[in-house]
């Protein structure tokens, strides 16, 4: 029966919450397991170490979350991160720019331009996001090699190293930056018309368009922001390693997309949250960190990461189908 005259629906916030709860449970299980198996896991040194590795994946995952919410995907993020590092070092070392910060600014602009190009390819030329960003991935990676001549450049500017290695009151600066960005983008996604429009676009693009939302303009901004954040991730990487290499951040796109999807963001758009992404990033890092402490080879770590991803997403699908069946029965 239709519900028009019957009792009002309960507020279905439950679905999103349940995803977050199952994520938090996965998180706790991992923490308890590693704390039990490895005495080094819950030490201050390890936790600080863990925290300082969160930022790169975490920051790039913000952009990827926005993109996935609109129903797109961006696989150029790792290549853009590498390009940003190379641009910084080449401008500083080969072109003799006076300040590394100026070079870093140029790198951020370069990342934004790649993102804007992605957005233009997708909105103006109607190229499928996977293909458009695959092209951008190849071009950005290639340019990184061309510009650097394939070389790894040392960049041990003490001021610049603060970005990746510095700490304020014992908390890694990169982590603080990441938390700040999460807070900022959480507000944008949940409390600004721009953010809500992204959900509308991902949920039903035609409905959004017919409601007068400038869909293309929103997508352009989203891909540009993702390019910018990818470049920022690349700079943090350079700062931490004190060097830039065209080969860096290989496979970053996989880790980032895995973290976002683990966090409950739908690949078909319209659904997702930064809280979920945040937990997804932490889970993947804890897994890597814990397995390293247990002296398990990095090859097996890849297997473990993939398994956790499939289990978490698979479980979520089953639960969702189950709850939809329940809802239908209730009608």
């Amino acid at each position, binding site marked *: 029966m239709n519900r028009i005259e019957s009792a009002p629906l309960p507020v279905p916030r439950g*679905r999103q919450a349940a995803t977050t709860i199952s994520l938090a449970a996965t998180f706790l299980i991992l923490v308890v397991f590693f704390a039990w198996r490895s005495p080094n896991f819950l030490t201050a040194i390890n936790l600080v170490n863990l925290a300082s590795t969160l930022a790169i994946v975490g920051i790039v995952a913000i952009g990827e979350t926005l993109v996935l919410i609109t129903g797109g995907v961006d696989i150029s993020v790792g290549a853009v991160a590498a390009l940003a590092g190379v641009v910084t070092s080449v401008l500083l070392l080969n072109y003799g720019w006076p300040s590394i910060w100026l070079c870093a600014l140029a790198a951020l602009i370069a990342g934004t331009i790649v993102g804007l190009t992605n957005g233009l390819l997708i909105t103006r030329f109607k190229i499928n996001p996977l293909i458009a960003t695959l092209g951008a991935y190849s071009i950005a990676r290639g340019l990184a090699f061309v510009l650097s001549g394939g070389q790894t450049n040392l960049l041990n500017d003490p001021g610049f190293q603060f970005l990746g290695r510095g700490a304020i009151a014992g908390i890694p600066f990169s982590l603080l930056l990441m938390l700040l960005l999460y807070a900022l983008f959480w507000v944008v996604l949940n409390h600004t018309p721009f953010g809500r429009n992204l959900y509308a676009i991902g949920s039903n693009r035609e409905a*959004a368009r017919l409601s007068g939302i400038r869909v293309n303009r929103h997508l352009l901004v989203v891909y540009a922001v993702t390019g910018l954040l990818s470049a920022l991730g690349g700079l943090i990487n350079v700062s931490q390693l004190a060097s830039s290499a065209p080969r860096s951040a290989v496979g970053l796109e996989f880790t980032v997309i895995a973290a976002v999807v683990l966090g409950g963001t739908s690949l078909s758009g319209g659904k997702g949250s930064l809280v979920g992404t945040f937990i997804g990033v932490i889970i993947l890092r804890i897994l890597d960190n814990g397995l390293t402490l247990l002296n398990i080879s990095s090859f097996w770590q890849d297997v473990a990461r993939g398994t956790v991803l499939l289990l978490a997403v698979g479980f979520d699908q089953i639960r969702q189908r189950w709850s939809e069946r329940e809802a239908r029965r209730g009608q």
Partner: protein
Amino acid sequence: MDNNRRPLLEMRDISKRFFGVPVLDRVSLDLYAGEVLALLGENGAGKSTLIKILNGDYQKDGGDIYLDGELVTLREPRDAEAHGIRMIYQELHYAPDLSVAENLLLGHLPRRGPFVDWKAVDDIARKYLALLKVNIPPRALMRDLSVVEREIVEIVKALAIQARIIVMDEPTAALAPREVDILFEIIRNLQAQNVAIIYISHRLDEIPRIANRVTILRDGKHIATRPIEDLDTREIAQLMVGRKMTERSRKTAPAAGEPVLRLERLTRPGDFEDISLTVGRGEIVGIFGLLGAGHGRLTRAIFGADTYQSGQIFINGTPVTIRSPRDARRAGIGFVPIDRKVQGLVLDMTVRENVTLANWGQLSRMGWFRRRLERANTQKWVDRLGIRMAGGVETRTRYLSGGNQQKVVLARWLEAGVKVLILNEPTWGVDVGARADIYEQLEALAAQGLAILIVSSDIQEVLSVSHRILTMHKGRISAEFSRADASEERLLQAAAGGEA
């Protein structure tokens, strides 16, 4: 209507071509504040194109649009909206993952500073929902609502942005009679507030109840604009079709052959229970129920698109197990679903590909398509069912009108050689002319021995096409009528749960 006033909207000599084919030929329309103008015409007459031009979705090739006497340019839906023009499309456009309140205010979320003012979102949503006396919680997700509720949200949405002109495309197509009354109540309130409404519907019987004037299009041309008092529904239908229509004769039903489809106590608790029925060779059985009576879900279960919990399905007296549409097709059952665009057709494939979709096995030899045979077979059905399209069998089905799309689905199952055809709301959103045509085709198919089960919430449909009629109420069969015994009142009473 005070015709001395200046019209709120004037569309003058609007023309439009698609791929060189004229769709609108110098069509004019005017609309006064506070009136309901019914825009009528068969599918393909150009109604949809005209209102899409008004909404800035399509660009006109010729003509002018005036609002309050001023020439306006409508390049995109935003422009139309800025002028207070609002569409409610036949296919509802909503974001399923957002709440009702957010959908109501999509693109117009109230802000406080740079942020969304969620309290205002809630308050505004509540205000407009209350205006229509609708008890839908503003925080419910759209995907959790029924089809009817979603449609009502769309209508509320137009109110919420304070449109001056609201275009409704088939607003009652999915509504039960009581809900139509609610909608009409709302429309009268809108009129009282001087909102002008362009009302498109294929249900001609409701036009006199709601419209002040009618404008009729045929083949992309303006045929007539008259006050509603000057026309009765028969004359309207004649103007639309352009030829004399004869009332469908209610002949006595032909005798049914041996049972082809038999259901025995088919049950899925909560949806349908204890459904036993037979459909004989050459028989058309109609199931009538009000919206939500469970008849739609029953059809999906018979076809294997949904499950059933207990009971048995027999084909030609043999019990069959149907767990998937593939099983159903193997058993010789074809299904024409309610939402042809989502469930029935692959819109970007051609008519030929859609027709042969369920029959590739026979049309290919060792994995290769026998293209010529495929074309010939498709052409056969196109001719027999009178499927009309601009570019032959290689036209994408997306570009066909609703009635013709429905015939393509029909053709697919005929091509696949089914013994039983199940149709769920077969003429939803299909115009009168095509409707009569589809009924005639079904009649002819039954005469050739097909067993047909039609499930519908449209009482006229069930009455005019069925040889035998069952009614469903709350998931159970509540009564059975022969064609001779059935009447509108008796069916409605039985479907509403009263004594037949």
